[in-house]
């Protein structure tokens, strides 16, 4: 067993274990931190697959950005004390059965498909190649993604800030008017 296999199995166990913990944990803060562990493990997987830039982006954007955002969401939407953080789970048995069937089907399809494998060359992935692709073939998606991010940020700020003055003046918003 070489180092690659050891790292693969170690981080596969870490990822699947913390994802399971995330789904089944009663406490949503524990879930958020388990999700962070799973995403960090996935960054290691990307590095194992020679996708260094994707791994770094995963760490920066997911672990650094989205997770902090989710934790803020958890903190801001809990009323008062810690008991309220706990969430409920419904239909656990039927949904687990359904998801198990979906997962087994996916695994069966993956294992029974005859994928075309190319011979591995280690140095095929480079930062230069990614940069050139971004400015040639992926120029339009790149620009559109920039505009989308700007729109999303402006929209998020507007939506999150809009209700504050109203709710401060009238603490009890009538539900049906």
């Amino acid at each position, binding site marked *: 067993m070489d180092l690659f296999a050891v790292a693969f199995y170690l981080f596969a166990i870490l990822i699947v274990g913390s994802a399971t913990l995330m789904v089944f944990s009663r406490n949503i803060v524990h*879930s958020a931190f388990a999700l962070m562990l799973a995403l960090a493990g996935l960054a290691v997987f990307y590095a194992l697959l020679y996708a260094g830039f994707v791994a770094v982006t995963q760490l920066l954007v997911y672990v650094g950005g989205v997770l902090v955002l989710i934790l803020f969401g958890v903190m801001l939407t809990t009323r008062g004390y810690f008991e309220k953080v706990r969430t409920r789970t419904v239909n656990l048995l039927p949904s687990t059965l359904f998801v*198990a069937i979906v*997962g087994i089907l996916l695994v069966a399809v993956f294992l029974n498909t005859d994928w075309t494998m190319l011979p591995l060359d280690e140095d095929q992935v480079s930062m230069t190649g*990614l940069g050139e692709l971004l400015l040639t073939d992926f120029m339009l998606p790149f620009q559109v993604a920039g505009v989308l991010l700007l729109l*999303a940020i402006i929209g998020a700020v507007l*939506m999150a800030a809009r209700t504050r003055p109203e709710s401060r003046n009238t603490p009890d918003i009538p539900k049906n008017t």
Partner: protein
Amino acid sequence: MVLPEWLAEPGLNHFLVVGAILFSLGLLAVISRRNIIMVLMGIELILNSANLNFVAFSRYGSLSLDGHMIALFVIIIAAAEAAVALAIALNIYNRFGSVDIEQISELKE
């Protein structure tokens, strides 16, 4: 200790199986939890399992660098989606005083 060959050398299938397990767990979080933020975290897990498949195919298959670009764009879209969805969750909390998706069943006229 001698391991069988399919266990000793992780290949494309091993990464795909991890991706399938992650997808199933994300789907389970989406359909069985009732907190809106848990649903959001399940969606993040599903997007990440798709990303893992893209990167695995670009390593072992003929997808080369295109898979990496798609993975990067998925990460960008997921960040934008998380920001907007959390803003919506905050609004829902301000309006209904709860983030339980069973209770959010009203639309403004």
